[in-house]
Every structure is written in C-alpha cells, then in structure tokens.
C-alpha cells in the first residue's frame, strides 16, 4: 500500500483542498435547520413578513454558496483522482517492462492486464469518492451533534448515544460482510471457470457423454455460490432497517426530551424542529457513508493488488557502461545450473559449452528437456543459480540491457507481431532501419513474397495479434524482424514449426550465409539441426551430447533414439 503514497505527492494541494471545500459545503448544510428554527421562533412568532423573507433569502443564499463550494471541491477532486490514477498506471506500465520474463510469467499476463486497467480505474473512483465524502459525511454527523449541543445540552445526550451506536452498527456490518464479499467473488470466479471449461471442452464432454455429470457439477457450484450470496445478503439486509430504527427511535426520545425542555421554558418550538432536522440529516449521511465504505474497500483491495506488483523488485540488474570487446558473437557456458523456484529442482544442470564466432549451433531435446531454459539463460531473461555465462568473452551480467538487445536477434517460439504496419514491426529492434535493410532481412527470412503480395507493401497494416496473416507468414516475419538489426547472435527458438520442409531448408541455407553471425537453432527435428557445426543434445536438463550429426549418431544414445523416432518413415520409404 505504501508503494502508492508517493504518487499522491504531486496532487497534495488538490487532495487537501477538495475535502476542505466539501467541508465548507457541509457547513452550509448544517446552518439550514438553524435558519428554519429561527424562521419559526422569531419571524413567524413576530408575524413579520420582512423577517420571513430575510430568512428564506438566507436559505437560498446558503444553497447557492453551497453549490459554489461543491463545484470547487469536485474540480479539485477530479484533478487529484484522475491524475493520481494516471500516474500510477504509467508507473506500473514502466515497472512491468522492467521485470524479468520469469517474474512477468509468475504474475501472469491476465492479472497484469486487470491491474493496469480495471483495478486502477477502481482506485480512481475510490479516491474521487473518498476525497468528496470521507470527510463530509462524518463532518455532518458530528456537526449535527455539535449543533445539537449548542441548542440544548440535554437533547445532545440523545445524539451522543445514537451516533456511537450507529457507527458501531454500520462499521460492524461492514467488517463482517467485506470478507464475505471477497468469498462471494471467489465462488463466482469458480462458476466462471466451470462455464468456460464446459464450453472449451464441449467435444470431449460429448465424446465421453459427460453432459449429465457436467450439468450436475455446475448446479452444485451454482448452489454453493447462490446460498453464500444469499447468506451475505441477509447480513447486509440488516443495515438499512437497523439504522432507520435507531434514528427514528432517537427522534421519539428527542421530541420527548425537547417537550420537557420547552415545558420548562428552556427551549422554543422551532429549536425542537431544528433538533429533529439534524437527526434526519444524519441518516442520509450515514447511508452515503456505508456505500462509500464499500467503494473504498474495493479501492483498497485494488490498490493492494497494484501495490503488490510495484513492490516486486526487478530481479535482474544490468551493467551501466557499454562493454567493449573485440570478439563478435562468442558464447561460453561454464557449469551452468538453473531452476525456476528458489528451492525447486534444477531445470538445467551443469551445462558447459563454447561457441566460436559465426558458428551454427543446434540445440535438440524433447519437451521439458531444458531447451527453452537454455535460451532464457543465454538471452538473460533469467540468471543461472550457479556457473558463469560469457558473451564475447565478458560476463553476461555486466552488459547494459540496451546493448544486449543489440547483440541478440531473437525469434521466439510463438510468433508475436504487434498491430501496426509491417515496417513498424520490422523496425522494433532498429528504429531507423531503412527499407533496403528491411527488404534484405525479408529475403533471408523467405518473407519477401509476403510483402510483395500486398499492395501496400511495407505499409500493410498488421491487425492485432497478426490475425490477418497465416501462421507461416507470421513466423517468417518474426524471423525477418530479428535479422533487421544485424545481430551478432541470432536465436531461432523452434521457430520454423509452421513452415513446410522445403521453405525451412531454404531458410536455413540463407541464414547460414549471413556474415559474422552466430546462430542458435533450437528444435525437436533432427532435420533442422543436422547440418549445424555443433549440436547440443539435452535430456532432462543435462547436456548429454555435443558434436556434429555424424559424431553424435555414433556416440550419443539419446540422439540416436531421437533420430530413430524421426526417420522411421524414411527408412521404410527407401
């Protein structure tokens, strides 16, 4: 929570002025019953038309001044709430991009999106409401008490009893129901999950004729949710009747006390009316206060969620000075081990290898063998637990982030393109890349025909998520994107899976011809890596083989098995 405090600072003036003006507005409201009392006790008793007009005129003036104060307050409060929310949103966005991939994955893209959007909107609403009402409502409640006190001390005792009782009840019900609301949300989420499962798994459900059971399961989850919601509703249902009961019983006592005081000549009739009006005013504010509490509570929960993310320190620290080296594209792993959880089992263990300038390296292994982790270590999206990694002869951790993104050209497993033109996508790694450079890269990636086929060429708009492109087209464009910036080390992480074998082969030949570029090919296919200078064979996180295709065929049993599993058709064909 304290993470967010500092974002208030630029708006502290507004944050003080808004409630201040709101209090001034409330102050005007508090005068109204006094004016009415005076109207009854002085003007009407004196039968004086002019005095009546003055009192009524005063009521109108109070209304107008009150409006002026209110508008000023709303202005400051809107400024503060929106500004605060916008600043947090921006800070969160910047923070998220400074977190490592592992951290981002741990939080989850969906959650991050909710926090950046609806959570922060909720905070904005809560701050806005809070600034306006948090002081106003209590001020009116206590103001009423003080006003009552100035009218008559005995009558004020009724207020002094009713107010704490009301506060205890309002707060008590809030405290009991707030955690219950959270649970309600939990039950509702489970119901959503169940629904989504039923829809996404509809073929399987039907294939296994599970319809009846699924409907039954859903009904159970639904019943659980409904009965809990009803239970929560029962408790919140108490709020209105109980406050109503207390206030009106208090009015009865108040009028009775007032009557005794009037009888004794201490009070006048109009003053009893004023006391009654103050009590009536209180109940309106109490109801507002309770709905404010709900909004605030939601806001606080959202603020905590946002704050949690902001509190996560980026786990990777980078060098500040560019690292100079006369080697280009060399890589050295020494006894590297890594795991995703602090005490978890290592996903890669004791990996050592060296890569010379311009070599082509294949990495092969089954699912879960540690290939992707190796790529993450190499591109520094995570740090090893032990061992050392050197790029161009210098420790990987000493490089500034910007320099690293220049050294590496990465083609991720999942082809992700952003909405915008093809050119904008190609310029991601190099903002000032010329059309020539882009076309050169497209040619290598076997993607020039995609652009050539579009009438807008490089200005062709890519829709969100690349919906208007086929899987193979997207993949080739992501490959081109990585080549545009002429990286020293190009990494293709299983990124030709959507290409047919012939295109895949052409692509590899073109890539092999790029000068001064070390290439890593990660794949499950032997055919993809067999021509590499060095093939790393991974199995259960260990490096079980390292060599050329031929040498591995004779020495590495895992490689032999993979090869056998993929060439069965070939052998039978020949």
């Amino acid at each position, binding site marked *: 929570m304290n993470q967010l405090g500092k974002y208030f600072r630029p708006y502290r003036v507004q944050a003080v002025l808004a409630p201040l003006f709101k209090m001034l507005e409330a102050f005007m409201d508090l005068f109204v019953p006094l004016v009415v009392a005076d*109207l009854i006790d002085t003007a009407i008793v004196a039968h004086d038309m002019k005095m*009546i*007009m003055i*009192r009524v005129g005063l*009521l*109108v003036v109070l209304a*107008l001044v*009150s*409006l002026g104060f*209110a508008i000023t307050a709303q202005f400051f409060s*809107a400024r503060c709430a929106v500004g605060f929310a*916008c600043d947090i949103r921006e800070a969160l*966005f*910047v923070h998220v*991009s400074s977190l490592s991939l592992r951290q981002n994955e741990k939080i989850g893209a969906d959650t*991050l*999106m909710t926090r*950046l*959007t609806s959570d922060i909107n909720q905070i904005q609403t809560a701050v*806005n409401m809070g600034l306006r009402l948090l002081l106003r409502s209590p001020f009116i409640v206590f103001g009423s008490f003080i006003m009552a006190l100035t009218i008559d001390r005995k009558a004020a005792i009724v207020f002094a009893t009713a107010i704490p009782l009301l506060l205890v009840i309002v707060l008590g019900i809030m405290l009991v129901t707030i955690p219950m609301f959270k649970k309600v949300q939990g039950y509702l989420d489970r*119901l*959503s999950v169940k*629904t*989504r499962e039923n*829809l*996404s798994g509809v*073929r*399987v459900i039907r*294939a*296994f004729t599970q*319809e*009846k059971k*699924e409907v039954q399961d*859903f009904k159970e989850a639904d019943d659980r*949710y409904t009965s809990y919601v*009803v239970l929560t509703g029962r408790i919140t*249902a*108490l709020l*209105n*009747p109980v406050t*109503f*009961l207390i206030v009106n019983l208090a*009015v009865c006592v108040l009028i009775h006390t007032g*009557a005794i005081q*009037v009888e004794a000549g201490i009070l006048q*009739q109009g003053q009893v*009316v004023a006391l009654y009006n103050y009590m009536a005013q209180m109940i309106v504010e109490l109801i507002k206060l309770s709905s404010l509490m709900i909004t605030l509570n939601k806001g606080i929960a959202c603020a905590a969620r946002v704050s949690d993310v902001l509190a996560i320190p980026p786990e990777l620290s980078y060098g500040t000075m560019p690292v100079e080296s006369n080697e280009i594209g060399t890589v050295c792993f020494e006894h590297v081990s890594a795991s995703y959880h602090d005490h978890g089992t290592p996903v890669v263990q004791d990996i050592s290898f060296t890569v010379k300038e311009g070599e082509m390296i294949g990495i092969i292994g089954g*699912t*879960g063998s540690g290939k992707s982790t190796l790529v993450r270590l190499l591109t520094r999206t995570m740090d090893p637990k032990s061992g050392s990694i050197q790029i161009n002869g210098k420790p990987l951790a000493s490089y500034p982030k910007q320099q690293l993104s220049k050294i590496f050209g*990465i083609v991720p497993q999942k082809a*992700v393109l*952003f909405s915008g033109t093809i050119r904008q996508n190609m310029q991601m*790694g190099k903002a000032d890349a010329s059309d020539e450079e882009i076309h050169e890269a497209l040619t290598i990636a076997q993607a020039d025909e995609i652009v050539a086929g579009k009438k807008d060429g490089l200005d062709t708009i890519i829709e*969100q998520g690349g919906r208007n492109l086929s899987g193979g087209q997207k993949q080739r464009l992501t490959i081109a994107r990585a080549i545009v910036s002429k990286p020293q080390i190009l990494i293709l992480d299983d990124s030709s899976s959507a290409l047919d*074998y012939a295109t*895949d082969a052409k692509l590899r030949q073109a890539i092999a011809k790029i000068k001064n570029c070390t290439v890593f090919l990660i794949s499950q296919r032997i055919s993809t890596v067999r021509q590499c200078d060095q093939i790393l064979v991974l199995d259960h996180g260990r490096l079980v083989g390292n060599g050329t295709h031929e040498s591995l065929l004779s020495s590495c049993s895992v490689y032999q098995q*993979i090869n056998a*599993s993929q060439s069965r*058709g070939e052998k*039978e064909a020949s």
Partner: protein
Amino acid sequence: MNRTILKRLLKEAGKYRFMMILSFVLAFVSAAFQLYLPVLFGQAIDHIIGAGNVAFDALMPLLSKAAVCTVISAVATLLMTLVNNSVAYGTVASIRNKAIATVMNLPLKYLDEQKTGDLTARIIADGDAICDGLVLGISQLFTGVVTIVLTLVFMLKTSGMVTLAVIVLTPVSFLVARFISTHTYTMFRKQSKARGRQMGYVEEMVSGMNVVQAFGYEKRSQETFHQMNEQLRQCSTKATFYSSLTNPCTRCVNSIVYACVALLGALFILQGNLTVGGLTILLNYANQYMKPFNDITSVITELQNAFACAGRLFDLLDQKKEDDPVLCSHQKPSIDSITGEITMEHVCFSYDASRPFIEDFNLHVKPGMHVAFVGPTGCGKTTIINLLMRFYEISSGRISVDGTDITSINRTSLRSCFGMVLQDTWLSSGSIRDNLLIAKPDASDEELKEACRKTQCLDWIEHSEDGFDTIIQEDRLSAGQKQMLCITRVMLAQPSILILDEATSSIDTRTEVLVQQAFDTLMEGRTSLVVAHRLSTIVNADLICVMKDGKIIESGRHEQLLSRNGFYADLFNSQFASFAQ
C-alpha cells in the same frame, strides 16, 4: 421487446410467485409506515407550543405510535430485502442452470461460431446483471412509486398549495440533471474510447513482453503508452468533473425548493392555514421527495442494461437445439456392443450452406481396420470425424455403424462406441483421478494403474506430490503429460472404435514413440481412424485416405500410394526433402 422479456422473466421466477406478491406487500407496508412518521412527528411538535404549554397527554400517544410505526417499517424492510434476495438469486441460479443444460444440447455448429469468452460472459456476468437490475430493480421501482404517491397524498393532506408548488418545481431538478448528463455523455464516450485504446495496447505489450524485451523496445512502448495516458488523463478529468456536477446541482435546486416550501409554509402559518408542525411535515417531505425520483432514474438505467442482458441470455436459451438432444427423456434406441464396421455412403455436408464442402463422400471401413486421413489443412479430415461422432449433421447421404444408421440411435450410445483423443488436450480442474474416471466412472484403482502403465504415465503420476489425487493446474503439467492423460483416459474406456485427431502433435518425437507403442496395443483388434500431420505415424495403416478440398483423391496402402507417384508421394517426399540435400 422489453415486455416479452419481462413476461419471460416472470415465468422463470414463477415458483416464487407467492414470494413476489409478498415482497410488494412488504414494500408497501414499509414505505407507508415510514412516510407516516413525519406526520406523527409534525403533530407531536404541534403539541409543544411553548413554556408551560406542552400537551404531554396528547404527545405521548403520538410518540409511542411513532415508535411502533418505526418498528413495523424496519421489520417490513428487512423481510422485503430477504424475500427479494431469495427470489432474485434463486431465479438467476435456475436460469444459469438452464443455460448450461442448453449448452449441452446445442449443436456444435452454433457453439463453434461463438467465442467462449462471450458465452461465458452471457451466462455469468449477464446473469448477475439480471439479478441486480431486473429482480431487485423492479422491487426498487415499486418502492419508489409507492413512496412518491404516498408522499403526495400526505403532503396534500397537510397543504394543497405547497404540494402544488413542489410538484411544479421538482421537474427543474430533472431538467438540470438531464442537461448535465447529455453534455457529459460525449465526454464519457471519449473516455471509454481512450480507455479501450489503451487497454488494447496494454494487452498487446503485456502478452508480447518477451518480444518487447528482446528487442529493447521498452522505452518506445513506454512513450506510446505515455501519450495514450495523457490523452486519457484529459478525457477522464473532464468526464469525472462534469459528471460529478449532477449531485451538487440537483441538490441546489432541491434546496431552493426547500426554501420555497419554507416561504409558502410561513405565509400559510401567518394566515392561520397551517401549523408549525405542518410546516415541519412539509419541509421533511420536500427533503425526501427527490430521493425516490433519483432512485428511479438510476434503477431505470440498470433496468435497461438488465433487459439487454436478459435478452442475450434468453437468446442463448432459445437457440435451436439438436433434434434429439442428449439431455432429454425421450431417447432413441441404444446400440450395444459393435464390431466396428463403418460405412459412409453418398455423404454431403457443408459448414456454410452457400459453399458445398463435402460431396458424395464414400468410405467403407471393415471391423478392425486402421484408417489414416492425411492432407493439407482444411481438407476435411477433421470434418469426417465430426460427422461420424454426430458433432455435426450431414445434409444428405447415410452413415452407419455396424449397418445401423447413426441417426436412428441416440447420440450418447453412439459416442460411447468411440474413444477420441484430440489435439487440444482438455482436462477439467480437478485431480488426475477425476479426469481419468470420466471415461469409466466405476474403474477400480487397479484398472487405473493398469491403463497408466500401458501409456507410460504411471511413473510420473506416482512421483507427483499427491499421486492420482494431484490437482491438475495450468503450469504443473507439460503439454505432453496432459496429452498422455487424455490418451490414458481413452485406454481406460476400451472403446470399439478409436479416433486420434492429431493426437501426438504436442509430444516430442521420442515420447511419441512410447505413446505410439501404447496406441498400437490399444488399436489391436479395434477399428481406428487416425488424423495425423506426421507421416511417420501412419505408414502402417491398412488404408490411407489422402484428402483435398473435401474429397478423397487417393487411397491405398503406403507403398501403393508411393509407387503411384501422386499427391501423397509429393507430400511424403517434401517431409524428407532436407535429408536429400
């Protein structure tokens, strides 16, 4: 349209009819007694005239009457809320349950066209909106109307002229509110547009964070975000400020109405037509009079929203169901043990009526035969499976299993003849055991273990934290492990016909060899239909159907097809083109 929706909704709430009537009665009682209180208090104040002039004997009964009214109104309000809750949540729960049952009976043709997220939102979020809006809203609407009517009645009884003034003046506050809301509407639209744009951007950047970071694109994306954020700041500040003017402005109008009532009241008192107590009553009502109006306006917006939601949900409920739904008491006859013979004669089918897809398709599969379907994406391989399982209905022709037309038997018994493994692994949230038992609810632990042993799963399942009771979570299992569980599930069911639709595409080749062995055991003596993109997994099939554009263009055994040097040979050779270099 709203009337039909309302009728429908009342029908759904039918079993709560008595409770709904009760709720209206309680609402009336609660409002009436609540509104009677100012009258009692006003009369009480009239008995407090001055020093030594307080009529306690008249005052006390009024106050005790007020206390009783308070209690009655409070109890009525409480009961009404409880009743409303039960009706609202009960009704929506039953609609939701109906919706899920409907989904089960809807043709896949419809479901495939819908987005999962959209349907989920209809069933869950729209359901909630109906609950808030319609069921609770209607009761609030009723309370509001009762309050307004009763307020007017009580005010008229006190002073006709003042009441008239209130009736004439209050619309001013509406006009003010309307004026503000029409002017803020455009600002709100701008705000939601800016929000939408920013949300789209956030979605792209956050889900593509790996790419953003890999290309050092953070700074540039932050700049774009900053610009969007500044735009949002402007729109949002304006929208927030102008919309927040509604309350103070209407309050100001009300205060002026209040002052007018005070003025008129005072004049009438001078004329002797009104008492001080009467003035208190009027002032009190003038204060409360606006509240039900405000409530009603906010309820109406919610009602409109709820009507829209109910409309969408009812649309779903009204969708045309399959002609003999699975969840239905009248079932067509079942089919018992079958040998696994499949015949497809002159089958025609299309997803889109204007574009014929599969035409005059013929296939005969003898019991125990292994058939493989190959061909480029969109050639109709998966469609054939969809037709066989009756996920989709053929437009003409005949499909029979063991000589029985599949439309003459019920879907449940037809589908239980098949065991299916799809490319998309589907596991429900629950334990490994729960997911396996879907196939055979009464399977013993021994059977479970046996099936797992056959698919090479037993080892890692037993090494998982809670063994078979391990809860399946997104990240706990690899894609391969999930697929293995799906395969084990079929292994357990021991179906007569096996369908594998790209079943091994998410498993690496070495594991695939193990799974293939498991399949081989499973396929033994059973008819099997395999759709695969890895040619190596189908070379042993008894019959390979090469499909293109919904037709079988070549068929035969692997060697025959290769020697024919046609489409299949091309396809097969391209896979190993790289070896040739």
